[in-house]
């Protein structure tokens, strides 16, 4: 009843970061990772990746748009 495979556990780890887990799923994952160090590591690394992705993607690159303006206007005024 409670036991899930590593494959299923990894699916739950992804689900956690997609639509989220139900209470039951959360417990199943917790019980599994409590016994399985490979999946515990996998969960930790996936959480970490998710966190890094978020912080990297939300950084705002700045750009100097002066060249862009000159280029765009030259296309318009040609």
């Amino acid at each position, binding site marked *: 009843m409670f036991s899930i*495979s*590593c*494959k*299923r556990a*990894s*699916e739950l780890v*992804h*689900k956690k*970061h*997609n*639509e989220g887990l139900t209470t039951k799923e959360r417990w199943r994952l917790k019980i599994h990772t409590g016994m399985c160090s*490979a*999946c515990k*590591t*996998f969960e*930790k*690394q*996936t959480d*970490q*990746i*998710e966190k*890094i*992705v*978020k*912080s*990297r*993607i*939300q950084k*705002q*690159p700045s*750009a100097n*748009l002066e060249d*862009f*303006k000159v*280029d*765009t*206007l030259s*296309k*318009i*005024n040609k």
Partner: protein
Amino acid sequence: MPKAQIKEHASPESALTDWVNNYSDVLYASAVKRVSDEGLAIDLVQETFMAAFQSYGRFEYRSKPKTWLTSILKNKIMDHFRQVYRRKETSIEGDFQMFNEDGTWKTENIPTPWEETHLLDNPEFIDVFDSCVEALPERWASSIRIKYLDSDIKLDDLGVSKANYWKMLERARTQLRNCLEVNWVKPNK
């Protein structure tokens, strides 16, 4: 004194000159926030101005130029994401099997802990990470961008089902993790 009015221009060229000078920054900021790619953001903003130039005759100054330009840009961004998702997946990269038939990890895929914990503080790691994101197929990378950047782009508008979208996120994460294992974790061991 007359109220401040939206200035009407003598010619499309003079209008666009004014707009390019005044609105490039705000449009670029808006584009880069959504696509998270400087080069692409620049292209989309330029396409926006070109489209505005071509259909200038239809702009009647009932709305503010900035509002009009913003709506053109938004359409360009949507078109971009639609195109990305319509493209057929050409490879099954990242779709490789991590698990055995019985649902256990394949020996070579068993996760082993990464030693370093404060990865975000390490500039070398960040370089590797960014190049791994760049190496993702565009539709997977977009799915991540949409998740974190874009509350106003709806999956429905893109014709992508939730299930497919989640699958793409899963693949993106899997591929990223593998890329980090190969390019960061193993060389540093």
